[in-house]
């Protein structure tokens, strides 16, 4: 029982981590990014290559891949998203356009990964030593993943809620029309938010690759789960994403342990639908 709670929290921690990135992109930059999961998978493969070919530890890989994720997303925003933002007459139109464009981007990223690495399962062994925690044995890499997720989540929450810079981002999320009246550069805020989201996706990828096998086509599932967490937590809410992410991890682990591992996705969907019907704006969302 306790074992499942720990495993559930580890899994939930990574979901929370990646969902934070997506919720920032969606809440602040107003871009629904369907290629988010493929960015995560790309980071997984990058870590894999760095680790197996250059024997760079995943922790050091973070130092390379997080800025890379930031830069990559910044370029994507400037080249692809900016024209869409500029031409969109309202928020709904931007939502549809961004969904369609990132759907295309998903296929491009996936295609590149498939060409480079093929369609097989990949994994590497890092810090696979058993650690005793609260009477149950957990793999060291999983524990590290959880600690990293919580740490990064905490840093992000503190930045968003305790710094001036974070306040600017939150202002844009809350009132995109009024923010410019207070001298806020919304375009810059959106650009930064989208890039931070990309950096978070890269972080998520590094963390996930430490303890999970991954395939070039697994991006869709990650996007899906991150989206569900974002919606459950409430669009743009970082604390919501953390709570919903942990919840989703626990649900998955318990379903896998007590019902059937093959039904986890179905269970996640059921939770998603039920919560949507009861609270259409998410756990922390405002009506």
């Amino acid at each position, binding site marked *: 029982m306790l074992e499942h709670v720990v495993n559930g929290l580890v899994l939930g921690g990574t979901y929370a981590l990646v969902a934070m990135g997506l919720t920032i992109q969606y809440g602040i930059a107003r871009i*629904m990014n*369907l290629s988010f999961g493929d960015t995560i998978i790309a980071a997984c493969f990058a870590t894999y290559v760095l680790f197996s070919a250059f024997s760079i530890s995943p922790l050091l890989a973070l130092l390379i891949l997080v800025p890379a994720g930031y830069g990559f997303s910044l370029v994507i925003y400037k080249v*692809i998203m900016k*024209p*869409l933002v500029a*031409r969109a007459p309202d928020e*709904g139109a931007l*939502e*549809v*356009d961004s*969904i*369609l*464009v990132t*759907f*295309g*981007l*998903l*296929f*491009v*990223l*996936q*295609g*590149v990964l*498939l*060409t480079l690495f093929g369609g097989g399962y990949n994994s590497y062994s890092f810090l696979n030593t058993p650690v005793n925690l609260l009477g149950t044995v957990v793999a060291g890499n999983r524990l590290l993943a959880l600690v990293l997720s919580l740490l990064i989540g905490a840093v992000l929450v503190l930045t968003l809620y305790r710094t001036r810079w974070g306040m600017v981002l939150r202002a844009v999320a809350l009132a995109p029309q009024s923010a410019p009246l207070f001298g806020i550069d919304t375009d810059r805020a959106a650009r930064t938010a989208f890039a931070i989201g990309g950096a978070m996706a890269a972080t998520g990828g590094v963390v996930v690759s430490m303890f999970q096998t991954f395939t070039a086509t697994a991006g*869709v*599932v990650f*996007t*899906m789960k991150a*989206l*569900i967490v974002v*919606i459950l937590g409430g669009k743009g809410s970082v604390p919501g994403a953390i709570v919903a992410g942990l919840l989703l991890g626990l649900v998955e682990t318990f379903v896998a342990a007590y019902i*059937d591992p*093959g*039904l986890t*996705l*179905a269970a996640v*969907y059921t939770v*998603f*639908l039920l919560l*949507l*019907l009861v609270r*259409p704006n998410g756990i922390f969302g405002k009506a």
Partner: protein
Amino acid sequence: MTMKTSFAFALAGLALVVLALAPLVLPDYWTGVLLGMTGYVTLATAWALFSGPTRYVSLATVAFFGVGAYTVAVLNEVMPYPLVLLCAAGIGMTMALLVGLSTLRLAGVYFVIFTFGLAELVRQTVSWWEVNVTYTMGRYVFLPFEGRHIYWQLLVLAAVTLLISWAIGRSRIGLALKALGDDETVAAHAGVDVTRIKLLLFVISATIITLVGAIQAPRWTYIEPSIVFNPTVSFMTLIMALLGGAMRLWGPLVGAVPLFLLFEWLSVSFPDHFSIILGLLFILIVFVMPNGVLAKFDDLRKGNRA
């Protein structure tokens, strides 16, 4: 019926006859191409039937398509073929009702997200069922059909779909739909039962898509979840409908025909980079023509090159 409509009907009927006779003179390869093309014309038209006027972008085409194909794979040895098709349609309809009832009341973006994952959900559930309950992975379809038999069935379905689309466009529902597409809130206040109309269209569209999958199933002979739930199907349907213009009767057809030929050529010439090219093409389409080719033509004719 006005002169113009009767003329259009006669022309469409003539085209249908020519297309139906084509396999008798064409070599098998080209019958196969026509078959695939008719399949996508039907898929794109059915997709646009719901997503065009409501602007609810459905990414779940392959979920229904795959369910149709899989139903045939499971039932083809147990019952006569027409009954199998009926079953497939029934299952697709039920699934669409369930999905529609639970998501169509919500904002459009929730619907998009739900449909985005639906294919994966259905695929995993079917795989789980096959592994744990029936102990089979992969099934064979043995039906005495050649390419042209499947093609004729698809041609009928395509004609029916276009007819439905035309009829809806002229009915009260079509009027309600136009209002709904312009502004959902206003439509609701004007007395349009928004959710019911959306549900009705979604069910019709999904049932047709399921049937396309069911009719095409014998083409594969061997079927397993990863083959019939291939997300590329959703993707191509979407591009075709968008390129041609999802708001027009002939739009999806105009988009599907050239794109299908292009994809056919691409998948033969660049099998390894197919999905990259597909993705780039898609991004390009969204950029250049957000309202589709036909709308672009209209713009050009009116002279306002926006």
